[in-house]
Each structure stands twice: as C-alpha cells, then as structure tokens.
C-alpha cells in the first residue's frame, strides 16, 4: 500500500518534470521550426513537423535586412560593457568583500539599491545628456547607460565570489610580505577566474538582452542592437513572421550556447548572492 503510494508519487513527479520540460521547450521548438517553414505554412492548421524545410527566412534576414549589423552592434556593446564592468567592478567588489573600512555596508546597500531601480527613471536625463555629448546613436552612447545596471550587477556577483575564497590564503600572502595590492594581483585574481568568467557571462547576457536603453538611444538600424532590431521588424504588407522567428532563434543562440557550456557555474553565480544572505 505505502509502496504503491510512493511509486505513485514518484510517477507524479516524473510527469510533472516532464510537463515542465515540455512547457519550457515548446515555444522554442515552435519558433525554431517555424523559422524553417515556408511563409505559407506558418499559420493555418500547422503540423508539428514541417512538410518542407526552407532557409529563405535566414537568407532574407542577412541579404535584405543586414542582420549582421545588429549582431555586430550587440556584440560590441555587450562585450565592451562587460569588459569595463568586470575590470572596474573587480576592484570594488574585492574591497567590499575583504578590506576593512567604514562605509562598506552603505556601499553594498547603495549598489543593491541601484540594481533595483527602474531604468525608465533615468531615460530622460540620460537622453538629454547623451544628446548634449553627441553620443546618441553611438556605441559609447549605449555602453555608458548600460553601466548603470551592469556595474552594480557585476559588483554584487563578484562580492559573493570573493567572499568564498579562503581568507587564510590572503593572510598567508600578507605575512609572506606581499602588499594588499600584490595579494590581490598574485593570489586573489588567479584564484577567482572562475568567478570572474561567470560574472562576465551573466553580465554579458544581461547586456545582450537589454531593450529600453537601446530603443531610446539609437535612431536607426546602423546602431540598433539585436532586440531592438527584431522588435522593430516591419514588412510592407504584413508582419514578416518568418524572418522575425529566424532572428529570434539567432538572438537566442549566444545565451543558449553559454548556458549549455557553463550552466553549473551560472547557477552558482546567480543564486549565491541572493540566497546565502
């Protein structure tokens, strides 16, 4: 009786997990498959498996819409932001995580507060500022605004990584005669590359996905990032769903690849700051 109940429960759980997997996967599957369907087969009574596979949407995407441009823009903006954040943020995070000074708690609180506040609240002054500096529709004009959310995020993640390093290693370094800076450079940094890499990946993903700033501070296709470009796809007579879905599939690729490779680290990184408090 009890054994039957237990079996029933694990069967229910297996079913539940199966349902989750399907629920998560289906929209992806549907979009990717659709991006290979001919335009005529996109709607109506669609089959789960396309009758005919075509690559015309992808071809049009690159030939007619120059989708390379938003991809390049996104890579540059997200890459530059991530680089700046990790380089500058690592120092800040290390100080907050390890050095003794007054004002540590307020700084961390401040950083936390900045990650929380809505981007929309600074769109107007940033727009006026960037216009003043003639940075609208430029790469720096996106990278600087991106720092507002990416820098606190990076610092926050790195603080929890640095706190996990055994303190004694740094103390051993100090006693061995290294300065704090030297300890940071020769002991802490080489040991925290997994943390730095994970942070970089998470920051990159956030930047890659950003929409509001990119929408507000670009004017035309030559500087639009991938999300903006996709969101603004227009056809002459109707919504070009085939191309939209092709672009969407491509926009998903970098994140998907990074996640497949680094999933364990990303999970640790994302959850460390939030839960272990």
């Amino acid at each position, binding site marked *: 009786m009890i054994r039957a109940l237990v079996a029933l429960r694990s069967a229910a759980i297996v079913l539940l997990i199966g349902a989750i997997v399907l629920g998560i996967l289906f929209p992806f599957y549907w979009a990717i498959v659709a991006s290979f369907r001919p335009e005529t087969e996109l709607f109506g009574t669609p089959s789960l498996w396309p009758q005919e596979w075509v690559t015309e949407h992808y071809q049009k995407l690159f030939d007619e819409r120059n989708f390379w441009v938003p991809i390049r823009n996104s890579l540059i903006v997200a890459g530059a932001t991530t680089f700046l954040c990790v380089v500058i943020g690592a120092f800040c995070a290390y100080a907050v995580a390890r050095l003794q000074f007054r004002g540590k708690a307020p700084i961390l609180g401040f950083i936390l507060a900045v990650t929380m506040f809505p981007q929309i609240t600074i769109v107007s002054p940033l727009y006026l500022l960037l216009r003043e500096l003639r940075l609208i529709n430029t790469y720096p004009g996106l990278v600087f605004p991106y720092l507002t959310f990416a820098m606190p995020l990076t610092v926050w993640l790195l603080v929890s990584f640095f706190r996990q390093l*055994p303190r*004694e290693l740094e*103390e051993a370094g*100090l*006693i*061995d*005669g290294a300065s704090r800076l030297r300890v940071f450079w020769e*002991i802490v940094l*080489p040991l925290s590359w997994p943390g730095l890499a994970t942070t970089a990946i998470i920051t990159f993903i956030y930047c890659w996905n950003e929409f509001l700033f990119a929408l507000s501070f670009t004017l035309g296709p030559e500087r639009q990032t991938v999300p903006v470009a996709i969101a603004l796809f227009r056809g002459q007579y109707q919504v070009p769903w085939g191309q939209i879905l092709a672009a969407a599939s491509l926009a998903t690729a970098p994140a998907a690849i990074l996640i497949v490779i680094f999933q364990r680290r990303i999970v640790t990184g994302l959850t460390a700051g939030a839960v272990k408090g």
Partner: protein
Amino acid sequence: MASIRLEKIEKVFGKNQAAVRSLDLEIADGAFVVLVGPSGCGKSTTLRIIAGLETPTRGKVFLGEQDVTAFSPQERDLAMVFQSYALYPHKAVRQNLEFGLRMRGVAPAVISERVERIAKVLGLETLLERKPGQLSGGQRQRVALGRAIVREPKAFLLDEPLSNLDAKLRVQTRAELSRMHRQLSATMVYVTHDQEEAMTLGDQIAVMNQGVLEQVAPPLEIYRRPATAFVAGFIGSPTMNFFRCTLRQDGTPRLRSSCFDIALNVDASLLTGEREVLLGIRPQDIRLAEGEADSQARVDVIQPLGNEMVQHIKLLGQDNGTSAMMIVPAEMTVQINDQLGLHFPRERLHLFDTGPGRRLGAAPR
C-alpha cells in the same frame, strides 16, 4: 630572531565581544611558547595580533625593542603556519616556497639556493613541481613549514599546524618540530587546544581562558603548581578532581567536606577563621590508604588502559556521595562496588579560592 612582547593587549570584536582581555606576555628570543586553552578562548586572535592580521583594540605589540603595533604583517617579517596550511593552490610547491622571498626582494640566486636546501631538509625535492592539490596532508604540512622556514623570519607563529594530521603523523611531526626549534633556535609561538601537545612541545606554556591569560610557566610548573583552578583542570589527563570544602582552623588547619575531614600541614598563618575553598587532587595522586583512610569510596566504573587503570569512584558521605577519578596500577584486583579507603597525600593537594579560582597558600611540593 627576536623577542616578542605583548603589553595590555585587548581585542574587542563588534561592539562588546571581548576575545582577548588585558593580556601581557613576554616571549624571549629563541623561546618555544605554546598558547593553549579551550576552543574560543582567544588563542588564534592573540596569534593574529602578533602577526599583524588583527589590530588590537588597546595595547601594544613589541618585536625586540620595536613597537610594531601599527605595522602591517608585511613589515613585521614573521612567518605563520595556518591550520589549513593556506598553500597557494595555483602555485607549484617551488613557487609557494619562493613567494615570501620574492616579495622581500631576495636575489633570485639566493632564492633558489635556499629553496633547494629547505626542500632537501624537509624531503620535498621530488615534489617541487607539484601543485598543493596533488600532495598528501602530511606533505602539504611540510610545505607549509618549509614556506615559513625558508624565509628565515624573526619568529614563527603556528596556529594548530598539526590538527589536520592523523595521530601517528602528529606525534612524529611534533618531535620534528622540537628538533627544528633547537636547530634554528628560533622564537616560536605555537597555538593548540591540546594540552598534551602543549606539554610535550613548549618550554613555556601560556594557558588562556575566555580571553584571559591565566598562567605562563614551564610545563612542569604548570602541572605541579597551577596558578588557577582553571589551569589545574585544563592541564593533565584525566582531569583533576575538585571538591568543595570548608577550610577551618581549630588548632591545626582542617579541610572538611561531607565526605572527608582531614588535617593539613600548610602554613597556618594564611588562614583566618573559616572559609570555603576548592580542593584539587589529580587522579594520579590519590593513593589507597595503608593506615587510617582520609575518605571512603565505592568503585563505580573501571576502565583498564593497559599498564594502568582509571577508576571512577564515589566518595562516600552524607548525601549521594561525590564523584571522582583515580588512577591505579593495572595489577590491582578490584571489582565494581568494592569499597576502598583513600589517602590524599598532603603535598599533592591544591587549594583554590572558590570565586576566581586563584591558588591559595604555599604550594605543596
């Protein structure tokens, strides 16, 4: 090498968590001092204050004649061995050994010469190119020691360096440490919570309790003349027996409890009227009475240890009796519930006051 002096050191963590209270300690050049005490008593904190890893809330630290209280660890030129060894995991053994010398700007030729020499002394020659992760616990421990020695520092600070080793290796390494201390004639401060380790290693033992330094003395004196009831109870195994009793003077001073009433031959001038005291006697010091017994006891538990035997006994008295332990030769034939007459050799009795537990009177010799 240098002497170390702590002057009225206090360390308060947070608002009011005192880890070290008004601690004075003088460590002579070349001495081997063991800081011992129960967990959380402030040993590590004291050691870290010497190292410069913690800044004392009050008080001063001297190295030789120099006040180094405001110096960073880097400027103190001490070496420390951590309980976890704290080897740099991303550096090979050779780089671990070299690091301290490199940081102090020693010439490369000198560095490699010294590293080779130390590696040979510690039997690490074949391990030099390995990462710490590829070493056994014992080997890591040797590298940690090597990293300290190769620097030729002013003094060595060791925080429970052996507690991650198995029992056999620990005994072996202890002997080696003693030998090394003699050869280097280096000042060493060694932290442990293991009183046996303290007794075997130190030429001076400093016993701490709740942030207070209770006594500093050579091992034998600590054992024979514990300055406080805490020291008496902490040093020695099994732990000392304590009995609350009344000390009174009518003619000769007498010590009375519910279980015994014995005459003392201590200096009577110390005693004024009647007072509560704590009587301590080590399990090793209780004898079986040959003539008249000081107290009667019943045997509760017998634990044979090979060449001797630990007996848990109950001193018989008005109430339920008082528990105690004694050690007797293994040959003694005794059974549970046997009744024994006990003798307390007067020169082995320790008297403490009941409040702070300070030692009373002239010492038994």
